[in-house]
């Protein structure tokens, strides 16, 4: 371990992060609207992916529920939007998602492996179809209109969610809870025997990750004028965070951010260049990423870094 390397790392990394965040906050002042909208979508995927990784990345429970919590946020915004300030709607969207996640989590987090993945996928579909039935039967319409908000506000709130999420994820990773989550992922019974309150920790972390997904949904809903259950609870939003996290690599905090940014930008690029083949190319990239990049981009970066002369200090 090279001491000088760690010392410089200690000052340089936070400095760069603060600088980047400051630039991002000032962004609407010096770029055009298209870029602001594009970066909002990228941030949305980053928030979904990083919050997915907080829970599933460390514990190894493959959750396919992001779409459920994202959709709950969207519907919170569709129902409450315009009645109260948007910030409160966003926080409420997050809190409702947190409560649903805590309830669902306390019931189901004892399911292991593929059962949990299937259950969470079923949850998305259950909410979607029940809501669709309710809307058609009782409100007489399929979808709802959402009160619009200007794009800069959406951008700033999304960035705010991202910053809070980043701090939360960092604090969890650095604390004893992060270690406990890691130990659950490695060997759950051993973690329980070492005095970790496994159930409580899993439920709370599941809830925290759902909070950010719900908040992201609540703010994104204001960008789509019209929503219906099929749009809000699209399973696409369940699989994307998983794919992006795998693509980026889950070992480091920057992995999911990198993966989500790369993928979201790629999505935009493909959507504008090859609108008819974009999903097809997407599927191919997904299969190839799983085949050839099992550790993701961050794993690849670390591997290359270690091979470089004098790059050993990164291996901590």
């Amino acid at each position, binding site marked *: 371990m090279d001491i000088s390397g760690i010392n410089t790392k200690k000052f340089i990394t936070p400095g760069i992060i603060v600088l980047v965040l400051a630039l991002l906050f000032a962004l609407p002042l010096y770029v055009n609207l298209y870029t602001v909208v594009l970066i909002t979508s990228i941030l949305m995927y980053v928030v979904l992916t990083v919050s997915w990784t907080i829970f599933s990345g460390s514990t*190894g429970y*493959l959750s396919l529920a992001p779409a459920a919590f994202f959709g709950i946020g969207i519907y919170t915004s569709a129902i409450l939007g315009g009645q109260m300030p948007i910030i409160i709607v966003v926080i409420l969207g997050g809190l409702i998602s947190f409560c649903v996640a805590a309830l669902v989590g306390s*019931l*189901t987090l004892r*399911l292991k*492996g*593929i*059962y949990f*993945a*299937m*259950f969470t*996928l*079923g*949850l998305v*579909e*259950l909410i979607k*179809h*029940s809501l*669709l*039935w309710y809307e*058609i*039967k009782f409100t007489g319409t399929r979808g709802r209109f959402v009160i619009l908000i200007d794009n800069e506000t959406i951008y700033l709130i999304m960035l705010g969610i991202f910053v809070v999420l980043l701090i939360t994820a960092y604090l969890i990773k650095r604390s004893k809870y992060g270690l406990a989550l890691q130990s659950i992922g490695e060997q759950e019974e051993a973690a329980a025997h070492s005095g970790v309150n496994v159930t409580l920790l899993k439920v709370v972390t599941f809830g925290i990750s759902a909070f950010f997904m719900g908040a992201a949904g609540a703010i994104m809903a204001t960008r789509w004028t019209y929503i219906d259950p099929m749009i809000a609870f699209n*399973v696409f939003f369940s*699989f994307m965070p*998983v*794919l992006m996290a*795998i693509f980026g690599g889950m070992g480091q905090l920057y992995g999911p951010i990198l993966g989500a940014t790369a993928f979201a930008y790629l999505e935009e690029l493909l959507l504008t260049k090859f609108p*008819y*083949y974009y*999903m*097809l190319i*997407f*599927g*191919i*990239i*997904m*299969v190839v990423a*799983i*085949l050839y990049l*099992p550790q993701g981009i961050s794993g690849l970066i670390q591997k290359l870094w270690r091979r470089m002369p004098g790059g050993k200090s990164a291996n901590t």
Partner: protein
Amino acid sequence: MFVTILDVLIAGLLLGGLYALIAMGLSLQYGVAKVMNVSHGEFIMLGGLTTWSLYTVFGINPLIGIIVCGPIAFLLGYGLHRTLYKKIGLSSETTGIFESNSMLASFGLIFIIQNIAFKLWGPEYRGYSYLAFPVDIGGALFGANRLVTLGFSVAIGIAFYIFLARTRMGKAIRAAASDSPTAGLMGVNINQVLAICFGFGAAMAGIAGVLISVSYPVNAAMGLEYTIIAIIVVALGGLGSIPGSFIGGFILGVIGSIVTYFEPGLALAAYYVIFVVLLLVRPKGIMGK
């Protein structure tokens, strides 16, 4: 009143036959090859749309479509396992990692297959009329095409069960299902057997697609719904249990038919409620070990 009950029950059995066939295919892929193939429904869709093209363009009888689609789907599934899933299996350290990675890879396959189908057939619903005359069963009327569907599902289910129970290959498959590394040590060519299982699963999906297209219109986006139904039935019957999937399919079909009778919009929601309750109360399923 009696006619209504009979009506609902038979409709449920007709639907259940399809569900059983779809679920048996997935059960084979998950139970033996350990691949939670979420692109299962896409093979159903391919079977359905291919049959539509064969019937409307070339005038080929849909039941002959079974002979065409079954083997093609088998080869596709076999090839996929020999290339894609085998490679994932080699690079995954544990079964858990293999299960999640192969599931995600098959999600990628959904995008690929579905979009190729959109290119070939477009997004429209494709339907044709074949054997669409009514048959009277105890006062209730049913389309002959749906009875044909049920007949084929049951026949294929029974034939496959006999294959598993009586042949040497069936024995190898059962051995691989209970413990594939040990089966490999006993001289079973395990990669071959797993790929054949995966191929059989795909073939059942393809045939189910043919049978669905006989009774219902099909389109390129229909796959995921059937996949989810298959997953629910497989969980209901017990992961990896072929007879369980067969029985589970009929149970779910009857439940679906009863719910549809009272509240048509809630059939899918009811399936999920059953699924969720089942996972909580008895995650092993009705026939699981």
